[in-house]
């Protein structure tokens, strides 16, 4: 299957990361946000733009920023002028696809130092509501005439998962509580809610049953950036490079009404590819910290199972037992994830990769997990339960 024929010339390391404040309604334009994050990542690596060979930009739907061809538009702020620059996008999975694309630029030998930047500004498209922009993801012929809103499909997936795995809403709400509390340690976070309880989640506005307001991440503006380099360069740049050990990505069909929604096949296949490359055969034991994609609380559980960090239907049990807490045996989203830090779509995925970088380097401060971190994982998902992207990093 996937991954068997992957060959590369160079090992690749992350040597710097940056991110902006994650907030709704930011003063800066998308280009300015991209610049703030990119500059921070360069500064952290001790580099300037002239040291960068290639630029990879990630941004998800054009419709949010209200700008046509956002890659070209963002290139200014992302440092891409007069350089080989490309934009990649696979919906919500984009944020982890950006370092994957940066990886192949370096691994192939094409570029030695790559700047990877992801940006999203959701608050522009607020009329009549940010939701409305998501109409374009539905099939125009068999779905749009039913006048759907985005949350329908996720509610359908969540309910299917609850049904198949016999999961209660209380158990799912625990994810939201954990992540919104974890976000209090994050300097960029939008939603720090130190005292939030399961009851608060269960009492929040019902949007599309079983999805309630606090089951969902907020709409957010923000940007994140990384600098990746070949082994030789990385060793020159820093004493503490964080290696990209494995990458994986896959797409499933957009015909989501033809398949079971209780298990994320798109994650399993992407994870298998990344694990094979990283030499991981027991992720539950070999991954020390993970940042799975959590725009909805049930998605963290779903994705833990797709990633093999929990058996099928086991993630809610691990969550209830505290295993996934920051000081637990398998810390999941110690950053606060999208539910806490915020969800500027592509930037949120890249934020997760940056978090793993900081966790491996022991630089996550209040978010630092209690156990030693040798290997971490970030994952994102996009579109109609469809696009999966996974990256494994470590020392």
């Amino acid at each position, binding site marked *: 299957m996937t991954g068997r024929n992957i060959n590369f010339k160079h090992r690749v390391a992350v040597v710097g990361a940056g991110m902006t404040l994650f907030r709704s309604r930011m003063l800066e334009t998308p280009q300015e946000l991209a610049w703030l994050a990119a500059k921070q990542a360069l500064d952290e690596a001790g580099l300037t733009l002239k040291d960068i060979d290639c630029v990879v930009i990630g941004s998800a739907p054009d419709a949010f920023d209200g700008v046509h061809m956002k890659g070209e538009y963002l290139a200014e702020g992302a440092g891409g002028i007069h350089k080989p620059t490309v934009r990649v996008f696979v919906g919500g999975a984009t944020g982890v696809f950006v370092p994957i694309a940066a990886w192949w630029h370096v691994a192939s030998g094409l570029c030695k130092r790559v700047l990877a930047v992801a940006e999203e500004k959701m608050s522009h498209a607020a009329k009549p509501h940010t939701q409305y922009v998501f109409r374009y993801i539905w099939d125009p012929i*068999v779905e749009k005439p039913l006048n759907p809103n985005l949350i329908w499909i996720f509610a359908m997936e969540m309910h299917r998962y609850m049904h198949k795995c016999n999961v209660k809403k209380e158990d799912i709400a625990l994810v939201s509580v954990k992540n919104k509390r974890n976000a209090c340690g994050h300097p960029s976070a939008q939603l720090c809610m130190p005292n939030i309880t399961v009851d608060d989640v269960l009492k929040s506005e019902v949007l599309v049953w079983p999805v309630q307001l606090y089951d969902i991440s907020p709409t957010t503006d923000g940007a994140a950036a990384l600098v990746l380099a070949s082994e030789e360069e990385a060793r020159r740049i820093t004493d503490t490079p964080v290696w990209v050990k494995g990458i994986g990505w896959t797409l499933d069909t957009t015909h989501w009404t033809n398949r079971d929604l209780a298990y994320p096949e798109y994650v399993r296949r992407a994870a298998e590819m990344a694990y094979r490359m990283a030499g991981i055969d027991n992720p539950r034991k070999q991954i020390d910290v993970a940042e799975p994609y959590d725009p909805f609380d049930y998605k963290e559980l779903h994705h833990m199972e797709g990633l093999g960090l929990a058996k099928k239907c086991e993630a809610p049990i691990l969550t209830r037992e505290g295993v996934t807490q920051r000081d637990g045996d398998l810390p999941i989203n110690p950053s606060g994830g999208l539910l806490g830090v915020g969800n500027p779509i592509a930037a949120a995925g890249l934020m997760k990769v940056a978090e793993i970088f900081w966790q491996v380097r022991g630089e996550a401060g209040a978010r630092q997990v209690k156990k030693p971190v040798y290997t971490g994982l970030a994952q994102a998902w996009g579109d109609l339960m469809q696009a999966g992207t996974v990256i494994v990093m470590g020392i």
Partner: protein
Amino acid sequence: MSGATKPLNPRGTKYEKVDFPVFEFPVVGKARYNYTTGQALGRFLAGLKEGKILGTYCAKCGRVFVPPRMYCSYCFREVDGWIEARDEGVVVTAVLSYISATRARLEKPVAVGVIKLDVPGRQFDDHFFPGLMHYICGASEDDVKSMRIFGARVKAKWKPPEQRTGSITDIECFEVVRP
């Protein structure tokens, strides 16, 4: 573990509506799309007008496609022909929408779900099946919330033939079949 917290000094400025001017532009006119229905879905929509739910099948892998495609994306070959699904099936998942497409509150929630359709002479597991998203009618809010609706039999409630336009909305909803 060091005490430093990255990112250091995250930048960016939050603004409030009152204290910062926003440049707003409306979409000029009303942009509309004319999507082609294509070969497979074109015939599917024509079928709906006649009160039929049509699909295609691949003889190589045995998959049945509703909504239909003209090719099997798994075997990457042309499908072997058309098949008629019954306008009945079971509910695979269902939810209650309390908000509209623009996030306005609805007065009464709407039930929507995925229906796994019956095809005479064929069996389907949970992993791949002919399925459509549609409204579900005849179910109470509690039927959905309690998940009793899962596995329930439903049957298409068709618009009268003269009102059909060749659209997924030629089916008003899938109605729960009471035994």
